[in-house]
């Protein structure tokens, strides 16, 4: 019987929220509550779905990284114990394929004769190269808006993964009557204010998955959010694994102390 409330909770947690298109409320003074999704990393035993997180990296690399940096993540983070399952050789190859700003050459130059910033092939210790050299360049290229760095985006937003998923899949709704979509902005009722500078980033087939997974907008969003959650919290798996051992230890310790307590106090009453 004790398992019943747990089972109900589990059912609730896995029940996806469906938001019908025609139910966008008129009052958008508060953004819509994030759509609740089921994630592989949910719950005390949650781990990152290896295939999803690698597909998510592909979505980031081929779509998001055109505007969004991922400054706090280095290539070698992708491999190793708390990585997303790439081997050392794969990491090396991924890094080498990236162009990062070169250090000054032996003449002290960082720009070549045609005035271009010189680059070199990346190494695993390099962080992910940013799409823009500085904030001003990023704003100029994006109509004045700054695409935020995505390294901590899942932790830095209320609603976490569900919020990011809702933003990515929240385009294409008809604005309610009387709502003005500002020039150069897009309607997204999950975004505070409803006007977002980011154009709909994902389309069906925007990427081609090598594992044959159908690249729908929802699938791409789900994958890239899994990847970004890993980027925000790469030690989640280690935390869940160690936490389980710690909980068992503390339960046993508390149990033993309780028995000692009963025994010591038996004659005192």
């Amino acid at each position, binding site marked *: 019987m004790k398992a019943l409330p747990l089972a109900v909770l589990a059912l609730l947690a896995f029940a996806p929220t469906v938001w019908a298109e025609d139910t966008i409320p008129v009052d958008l003074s508060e953004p819509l509550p994030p759509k609740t999704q089921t994630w592989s990393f949910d719950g005390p035993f949650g781990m990152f779905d290896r295939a999803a997180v690698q597909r998510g990296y592909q979505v980031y690399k081929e779509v998001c990284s055109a505007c969004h940096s991922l400054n706090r993540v280095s290539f070698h983070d992708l491999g190793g114990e708390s990585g997303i399952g790439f081997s050392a050789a794969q990491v090396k190859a991924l890094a080498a394929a990236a162009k990062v700003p070169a250090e000054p050459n032996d003449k002290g130059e960082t720009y070549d004769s045609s005035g271009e910033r010189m680059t070199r092939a990346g190494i695993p210790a390099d962080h992910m190269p940013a799409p823009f050299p500085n904030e001003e360049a990023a704003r100029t290229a994006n109509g004045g808006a700054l695409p935020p760095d995505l390294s*901590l985006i899942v*932790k830095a937003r209320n609603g976490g993964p569900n919020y990011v998923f809702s933003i990515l899949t929240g385009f294409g709704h008809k604005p309610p009557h009387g709502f003005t979509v500002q020039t150069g902005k897009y309607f997204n009722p999950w975004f505070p204010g409803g006007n977002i500078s980011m154009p709909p980033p994902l389309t069906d087939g925007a990427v081609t998955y090598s594992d044959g997974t159908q690249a729908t907008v929802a699938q791409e969003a789900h994958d890239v959010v899994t990847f970004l959650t890993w980027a925000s919290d790469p030690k989640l798996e280690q935390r869940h694994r160690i936490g389980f051992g710690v*909980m068992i230890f503390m339960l046993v310790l508390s149990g033993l102390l309780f028995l000692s307590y009963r025994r010591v106090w038996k004659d005192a009453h």
Partner: protein
Amino acid sequence: MSGPSTYVPKSGFARWMDSRLPLARFAHDTMLSFPTPRNLNIWYAFGAILTTMLLVQIVTGIVLAMHYVANADMAFDSVDRMMRDINYGWLIRFMHANGASFFFIAVYIHMFRGLYYGSYKAPREVLWILGVILYLLMVATAFFGYVLPWGQMSFWGATVITNFFSALDQVTPHWGSAIATWLWGGYAVGDPTLNRFFSLHYLLPFVIAGVVGLHIWALHVPGNNNPLGIEVQGPQDTVPFHPYYTVKDGFYVALFLLIYLGFVFYAPDFFGNPDNYTPANPVVTPPDIVPEWYLLPYYAMLRSVPQKLIGVLVMAGSLVTLAFIPWLDTSKVRSSRFRPMMKQFFWIFVLDCIVLGYCGAQSVDAVRFGVPLVWAARVGTLYYFGFFWVVMPLLGLIETPKPLPASISQPVLSPAE
């Protein structure tokens, strides 16, 4: 109850040491043989829990300081580096961040317990006041600590709190702003502010540890109060601290740590604000600046007053009031178990603090169930002050307490009663 010492040195070295520096005798008398009322319940375990949490915070904090960089340009990155690159840095940091919240959970239970059982009443006034000082030191330490990760809420929280001093401008023009500038070490919260807050955040825990020593000393002179609130009359009312309370406290400490570590491993950001994962930006103000949960009731009181200076005074007054409680309570009976009216006002007070905390977490113009929360906060503030300054003095005069038991051992020994 600091009665005659029962320590007997067992070896030649122990006798030699005992006549020179009787450390073992001190430890024996305060931690082993110390006569403790036999009827202490779970709520009396929070002293031991608080000592444990102070130790956890100091140990994790010292390790964090080895990796932290107190510089406005590097602080956020250094904290993020701990989370990603330092071995088990995430564990140490989450223990420290959640440790602060659980430290406050424990101190609030400890304070409410003291209020309920009248532990502040003679001869324990100094013990209580030392506790109030400890609480204020904790608040200051937690505030300084929250600034250090240098996220958006760190920066803007520090800006709001330090700006309280500029309210003094309304009394003595320019003096308030001058104090704020002096605190900042500049004309706004910035690098010098971060550096001095780090220095103070490292200093204050050791001041707390020192005052904890005084707090325990002041506890060991009159001895523990107890749920009945009556004095210990003889050895039949007490048990030696060890093993009776070492094992009982030990069990509750383990249980508390179990819950605390559950949050550390499975909901480490539960008490945090997502905005603090965005680096501090002096030109972008977050939509809602809220303090950490443990300061929300005071924040609600501050915001319930439309005039800034009076708001600051109300908030300061709510803290200062705590020190006067031993003299505001006029009742001859300590424990609320025997005070039918006080018991009710006490639980309303607990509820009041929760309502104030809720109001403090919402935006200023929020309305719930048709009630503007600012009015709920105003009523809550009135009750907070009314409870201490009106209810407490009056109840002692008009309330008829229930008859007290003859001794601690009597109701314990005869459960049929």
